[in-house]
């Protein structure tokens, strides 16, 4: 990890050289070992050797979520399966989930990145760190646990608990740092107030917020209610993982792990690169990943890159992350849910066309859930109200299982859509 440790101290020119070297070898590996990448380049008559600068990356085609589904399960892996030590699954865009793999070295890099991000939030081996993420972010739960353990913190891993139990653990185990989503943090804060427990009952001092960007006023309220300082992490629930970018003590943008990822900002409509400092869609290319390289992956997230020096002294560029999405993906407590996938499951189970369904993200008891409105029609209409009810509950369970988020289906009359 010698090169890793010294990355911060590199001059801009040296940083550029290191990124170029890593980009070129990533392209060489992807081109040689993954037919999908070879075809993508060949179709444009480009060879990896043609990418001579970081800017040349713009000549390469984008990778999108649909590509993951299409090459399900292992066709985007750049190493033999024998080298894979972990396989993660996340909901995809349609029928197939997104499957990503990690080599031992990839895992090592993630541990390193996560402990870097947590160290920036002031987490030390003295902390008792509790991870509380919803089932759709179970992969992140594992990553955070590994990163915090390598830092030497005492970790309470992610487990599905009721809000009462969460709070009990938080209080009795003297948790000092909590990693969770904005919705869950808000839910905890409200529950504490409702149950008459003051923040003084907790030992909590650090809150790491991940999964979604958080509105400044909500953040302030949560910080006040829980008596904590908070740090935001940016990541992707499918690939590559959590804490791609993280806040430092200056809380002015999120430092991107530029030694592992090359960020670009493009116009979401045309895909054209935008001038430095503009807001647009964030595109990521992996620089060190062995098993599952991403080349110009469109994240669908809206962001801006700040290259000015950060008062904290960290030389990694910063990301300003906006809540809006650039695609038809809904962020439900950090889990990316693709509208097409919801349609796929409902069509499959209830033979419903896209037009008969509308979707929205709703809130229930402080947590977000996927709300599906179905216009009543003859196909699913049954005289037996019980039968209909059963069918809808089964459909909800299927959505929950496949998407990793709570779902509620409501029937409405045709006229109200």
């Amino acid at each position: 990890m010698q090169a890793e440790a010294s990355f911060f101290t590199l001059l801009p020119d040296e940083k550029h050289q290191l990124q170029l070297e890593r980009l070129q070898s990533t392209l060489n590996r992807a081109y040689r070992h993954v037919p999908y990448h070879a075809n993508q380049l060949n179709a444009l008559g480009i060879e990896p050797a043609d990418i001579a600068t970081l800017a040349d990356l713009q000549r390469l085609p984008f990778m999108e979520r649909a590509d993951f589904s299409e090459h399900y399960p292992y066709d985007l892996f750049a190493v033999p399966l024998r080298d894979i030590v972990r396989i993660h699954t996340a909901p995809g865009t349609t029928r197939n989930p997104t499957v990503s793999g990690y080599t031992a070295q990839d895992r090592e890099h993630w541990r390193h990145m996560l402990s870097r991000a947590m160290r920036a939030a002031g987490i030390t081996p003295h902390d008792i760190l509790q991870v509380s993420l919803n089932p759709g972010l179970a992969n992140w739960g594992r990553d955070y646990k590994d990163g915090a353990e390598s830092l030497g913190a005492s970790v309470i891993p992610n487990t599905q608990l009721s809000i009462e139990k969460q709070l009990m653990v938080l209080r009795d185990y003297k948790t000092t740092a909590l990693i969770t989503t904005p919705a869950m943090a808000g839910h905890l804060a409200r529950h504490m107030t409702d149950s008459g427990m003051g923040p003084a009952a907790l030992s909590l001092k650090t809150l790491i917020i991940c999964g979604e960007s958080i509105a400044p006023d909500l953040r302030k309220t949560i910080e006040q209610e829980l008596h904590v300082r908070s740090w935001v992490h940016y990541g992707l629930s499918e690939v590559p993982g959590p804490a791609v970018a993280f806040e430092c003590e200056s809380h002015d943008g999120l430092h991107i792990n530029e030694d592992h990822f090359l960020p670009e900002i493009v116009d979401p409509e045309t895909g054209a690169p935008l001038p430095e400092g503009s807001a647009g869609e964030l595109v990521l290319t992996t620089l060190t990943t062995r098993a599952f390289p991403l080349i110009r992956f469109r994240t669908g997230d809206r962001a801006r890159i700040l290259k000015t020096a950060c008062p904290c002294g960290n030389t990694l560029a910063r990301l300003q992350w906006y809540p809006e999405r650039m695609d038809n993906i809904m962020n439900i407590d950090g889990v990316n849910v693709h509208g097409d996938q919801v349609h796929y499951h409902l069509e499959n189970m209830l033979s419903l066309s896209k037009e008969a369904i509308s979707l929205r993200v709703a809130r229930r008891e402080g947590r977000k859930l996927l709300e599906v409105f179905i216009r009543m029609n003859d196909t699913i209409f049954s005289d037996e109200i019980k039968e209909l009810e059963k069918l809808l509950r089964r459909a909800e369970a299927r959505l929950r299982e496949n998407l990793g988020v709570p779902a509620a289906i409501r029937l409405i009359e045709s006229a109200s859509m």
Partner: protein
Amino acid sequence: MLRIRNLKCFYGRIMAIKGISLSVAAGEITCLIGANGSGKSTLLSAVCGLLPDWTGGIELEGQSIKGLDPPALVRRGISLVPEGRLIFPPLSVMDNLKLGAYTRYKKRAANAIEADLESMMSMFPILRERFRQPAGTLSGGEQQMLAIARALMARPRLLLLDEPSMGLAPMIVEKIMEVLEVLRSGGLTIVLVEQNALAALEAADRGYVLETGAVVLQGAADELLADKDVKRAYLGKDYGDFYDAG
């Protein structure tokens, strides 16, 4: 110290190096490993000025070396220990060493050269014993020591070695790697090209893995030593040990 960007080397119309970028930090041993024909030696030839037909950028301490001939590069501080040693067999060990300082004689540095001869012989005591012997009568390991000492006589700041372990017994290889580590701790920057990946990675700080003219992997030497791909391809692990799902 040395920075290469998008180096492409040609033998006629054949592109032997297909856009390699790499960097060598001062005071480190950087190794290039890869199979036969992966372009390792071609890359060294370009850096030493022995191969004129290349494009891209090679910078030594921030300055391009494009167009410089080998003597000029030696004066700039680059010295090569070529593959197969290439000592002068009929000449004595002493004369071989003095030839290494060829570019310095013009600068009337005779006294300094004498002092360097002395320090070479303290570093490689065997050369003192064989001082007046024709170099061709030395054993393979001794010849390799002589080739390294000869390169050092030019007082390089960047020492390039092309397959120094070739044809030598493991014990001798170990000795040579020890010498390189001593030189590194004295502040010398070293680029080591090796097919013997294990020996090279054990001595090196960082490494690059070359495959048919391109870099497919780079990183800290210990990271590469632990890498399954590297183990499979270059560290002599039986391919049958691995199940290839592809």
